[in-house]
């Protein structure tokens, strides 16, 4: 059943013992939007994305992904077939080459071999990995692993893409390549949900943002409306907390004496 939202959650909560890592989060992600999910370290971004992708079970609350209600007692294979995920740990097998890994993922989505090969060539070429076909992924740099994981997520041509920190630890060239691919992906009407610390990239790419802190969603909506005349950074600092207020002087760092 189609709704207005590609992702929708009601009071989504995840507790670890006494700690509520995600606390009553009500997400609304529009179809075809580029949604940036922001928050400081330990705010609950990765926990939220894990719940949305079925990697972690919520303590309470409900979710709808691509219009389908997510039931925890089922394996949700139908939803998984329509989404692509770049998980936090990237999910790669160390002892496979890039092509082998893409073949594996493609076959898991039950794609025809010819299609897998064609798309793999295209993706590896666009992401600059075509010359690394003999290398095992354990020999890849962190950035190359990120690109391969993104290629695997894009391979089945999903309707919705979840990316957990796709720009963390990647160089400027790789970052540009990823941004271009994602922009094209959204332009054709698909939805991207990404978490990131890099505010500049989110500001440049995203149409919508959500800000989470201490497990609570404290801001959500179209980026232009939220930041109004200011920048995303000022909005983020204003909502999450200003460093100036909590700053502690390290006086000895100002002295040259040892």
């Amino acid at each position, binding site marked *: 059943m189609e709704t207005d939202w590609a992702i929708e959650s009601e009071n989504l909560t995840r507790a*670890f013992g006494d700690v509520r890592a995600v606390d009553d989060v009500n997400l609304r992600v529009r179809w075809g939007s580029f949604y940036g999910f922001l928050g400081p370290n330990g705010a609950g971004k990765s926990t939220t994305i894990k719940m949305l992708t079925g990697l972690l079970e919520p303590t309470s609350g409900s979710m709808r992904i691509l219009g389908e209600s997510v039931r925890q007692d089922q*394996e949700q*294979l139908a939803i998984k077939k329509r989404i692509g995920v770049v998980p936090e740990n990237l999910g790669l*097998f160390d002892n496979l080459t890039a092509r082998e890994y893409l073949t594996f993922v493609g076959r898991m989505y039950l794609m025809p071999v010819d299609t897998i090969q064609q798309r793999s060539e295209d993706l590896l070429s666009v992401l600059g990995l075509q010359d690394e076909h003999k290398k095992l992924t354990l020999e890849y740099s962190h950035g190359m692993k990120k690109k391969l994981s993104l290629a695997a997520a894009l391979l089945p041509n999903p309707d919705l893409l979840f990316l957990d920190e796709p720009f963390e630890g990647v160089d400027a060239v790789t970052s540009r390549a990823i941004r271009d691919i994602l922009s094209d992906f959204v332009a054709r009407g698909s939805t991207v949900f990404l978490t990131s610390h890099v505010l500049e990239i989110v500001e440049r790419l995203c149409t919508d943002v959500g800000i989470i802190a201490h497990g609570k969603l404290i801001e959500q909506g179209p980026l232009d409306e939220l930041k109004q005349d200011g920048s995303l950074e000022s909005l983020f600092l204003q909502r999450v907390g200003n460093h100036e207020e909590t700053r502690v002087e390290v006086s000895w760092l100002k002295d040259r004496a040892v």
Partner: protein
Amino acid sequence: MNLEQLKVLVWVRWRIAINQLVHGGSVGAVLSSVLGVIVIALSISSLVLAFGLGLFLLAKVPASTLIVVWDVIMAAFLFFWIIGLVTELQRSETVSFEKLMHLPISLRSAFFLNYLCSWFNLSMVAFLPAMLGLALAQIVTHGMGMFVVLPLLASQLAMITAITYQLRGWIAALMENPRKRRTVIVTMGMIIMFLSQAPQLFNVYVMRKSRQSRQTSQQQLQQELERYERDMSDLRQELQEGQIEPAEFNRRAAEIEPPVPSPATTKPPSLDEQTIALLHAALPPGWLGLGVKTLAQHRYWPAMVTTFLAAGVAAVSLRRGYRSTIRYYRLGHMHTVRSGAKHSAPDPQVTNKHDASSFRKIHVPGIPDVVLDFTRIHLRHLLRAPEIRMALLVPPMVVGLSLIPAMFSTHDELSKMPVIYRPLLLMGAGVFSVLSILQLLMNQFGFDRDGFRTYMLVPLSRRNLLLAKNLSCLPIGFGISLVMVSVAQFMTRASVDGYLGTIVQCGSGFLVCCMFGNFISVLSPMPAATRTMRRSRVKLVNVLLHVVFAMTLPFVQIPIAVPYVVYWLWHFYGGTRWVPVYTLSSLVLLAALGAVYLWVLPMQGRLLLRRQGAVLRVVAASQD
């Protein structure tokens, strides 16, 4: 699961194995190929051998022998299977759930496939053909009724593998926390060591009981014999003195019973059949032996019942294993913060006070404070690493589990040993204890891994760096030695001079090991895989160097024997025993070795300075 997906999962496992082989280097590929051929040969030969054994040797043996044969096979299989389990735990799962959960795949089927793949290991390759061969031979020799042994064997293996797979999942979940991971590995290693030593301990216990029983019986027999001789002598005397007639003598002589050796001296105690059957029924690994025995006696029900029971246990274990795996991944149980735990920031003043008090406590003349601080930090690092704890615990455990029972069993012989030779036993315990930290001393930088960068950057002379590293091992090595020598002293009752002298000797042994270990640590560092003491990516030259060094070590340790020779000569030529010759000569040797150590250390420091870049390249590379 879709059949296509199943095929892809099998394919990906195969690709991973092939890639590991091909990308492991030419030597690795050759070694793996050779190993593969050996494994196949082992598998085929164990099948043929077991079949032949069953056909020709076990065809006519009684059912009570068959149960022993199957028990031995099952015990050996279990032992190797558990060792394989621990080894496997140190690696990550080839196709872990974490890498599949975001894909459109049925996790139930993936779990089952992973379980099936857990069957493919060396223990199974070696034992399954042997068990199969033996079972087939018994079908041939005992008739088709024995056919039930095949499902019985299958269910038994399914039960063991399912239980261990469930256990593996549980332990793997525990090991998610890196600190717990190392502790789990250490604990598992210790459990295996104790299990492997259990027969030895049991044997020592039984032998001791048997010897005691034999001695008691012999004493009783002797008393009986003396009583018999005395009575007969009295009777003969009465006959000679004419107090009794020959007829009376014969009658009374017949009444006096000659002593008969008690059964305890002629036959070892044994369990009756009913107890054996009960024990086998109570212990699931014994079900296979019990089933085979009853099948050989043409009783089918026990075998069929144990088959169904084992299959049931396997099914329940798999179900529980699946549920706990899913719970672990999807409920994130291992990330759970303990309920009621307080989250408060540490009081910086308290922390600083604690740190400040723990430092600057001890001042040792001649050793700079910075070296002592470094020593304390390194010692803490050593003591907190469970893999190092395990490596340090193994030798005392080996000594404790094998030497001490042996000493107990030969206590009488030890008490008869001349006092002059007893320090040799103490020295053996001491030398063994010092050698226990040799693995650490011979690869001092390997276990620093990336931390070696810090050592390179600290403004500490390389001489002092080596000194601090050696000193940090001293409390460990000396502590183990002190305990072991004291235990040996308790057992052997050596002289006070022998005891004190041996303790000093341990210091000398430690110094020699330090000098030796410093050289090899600098010249031939070995990379150690993270979280283990296992060496990884080792070059052949380094291995050869370590072998040469290890072979040289006994010769280097020869000076340690000098104080004992002095002690022996002193006593041999009738010197008074009130002079502590052994302790004094040991102290002289220690002082001499200390001087040599202080002379060698700056040289070793300069060598480290020259080679520290090379050492860093070896030890600090990524090991995962």
